[in-house]
């Protein structure tokens, strides 16, 4: 016990902060108001179906409640919940992968024929042009992310699913194949076509779009 009043104040203050944090963590209905929309937006981009996205958000919060003693701070509540959501999305596709085929080899099966001359080289006018992204600057622009979102939305669902698992969740190829029950060769074809289409879409609508002021 310290007799110094200052130390007592500090202790009281610290206890108040801890209590405040405990309240925030322990009151999951506040999570729903604070983080629900953000989680829902991400889930919706990924699964494209509002009812499925809502279920995933609910499962995320429930899992959060069950495992909250494992949350040790270090990250924000939001990024911790986002991590749980990503796992829930992977689980969702794993279940779906057992029921439906995730292989989509139809998309771009002509390999962008108009991009290449028959001899096998880029058509001169249509080849990739230099992108001059002031990377850091561009990354902060909301319009860029909207363009990115629209381009992802144009990919066929299954192609988008494998692309986002690979590039956003950073799941390794082999794991995606195991989760979704697709062959490695087919996954590579799908990723290749997703990248080609996304590159093309970003070039047209952002990097080579004269209306976008970089």
């Amino acid at each position, binding site marked *: 016990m310290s007799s110094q009043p200052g130390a007592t104040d500090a202790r009281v203050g610290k206890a108040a902060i801890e209590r405040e944090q405990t309240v925030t963590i322990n009151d999951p209905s506040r999570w729903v108001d604070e983080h629900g929309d953000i989680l829902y937006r991400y889930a919706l981009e990924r699964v494209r179906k509002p009812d499925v996205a809502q279920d995933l*958000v609910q499962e995320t919060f429930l899992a959060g409640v069950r495992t909250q003693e494992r949350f040790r701070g270090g990250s924000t509540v939001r990024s911790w919940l986002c991590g749980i959501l990503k796992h829930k999305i992977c689980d969702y596709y794993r279940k779906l992968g057992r029921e439906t085929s995730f292989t989509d080899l139809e998309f771009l099966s002509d390999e962008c024929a108009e991009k290449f001359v028959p*001899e096998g*080289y880029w058509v001169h006018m249509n080849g990739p042009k230099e*992108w001059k992204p002031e990377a850091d600057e561009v990354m902060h622009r909301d319009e860029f992310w909207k363009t990115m979102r629209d381009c992802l939305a144009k990919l066929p669902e299954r192609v988008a699913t494998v692309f986002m698992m690979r*590039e*956003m969740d950073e799941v390794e190829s082999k794991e995606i194949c195991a989760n979704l029950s697709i062959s490695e060769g087919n996954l590579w074809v799908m990723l290749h076509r997703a*990248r080609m289409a996304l590159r093309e879409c970003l070039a047209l609508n952002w990097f080579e779009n004269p209306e976008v002021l970089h």
Partner: protein
Amino acid sequence: MFQEHRSWLQLQIVLLICRFTPKCPEVTRILSLGMEKELPLITRIKVRIHFLMCSFCERYMKQLKYIRQVSREFPEKIGEVSNAALPPDAKERIKSALRS
């Protein structure tokens, strides 16, 4: 790719490269594959040689890497640019599920 002014010798070198390295559609496929696993040394050399005469494919590679980089940032950005919101009834449903 052939319309630039080249001397006879330069043209022969380009034609030689064309004969022994993959064509552009194949190179784009290889570049994507290279993001999934390590490619054999000989393939990497062929791609490098291909880049000597094809700046399109070299740009393509840089842009794929850039797309990978921005994709990783996408999840945290999407919350800011999308205006989708959990419908009120879904919020209530989730809250009551959390209480039970």
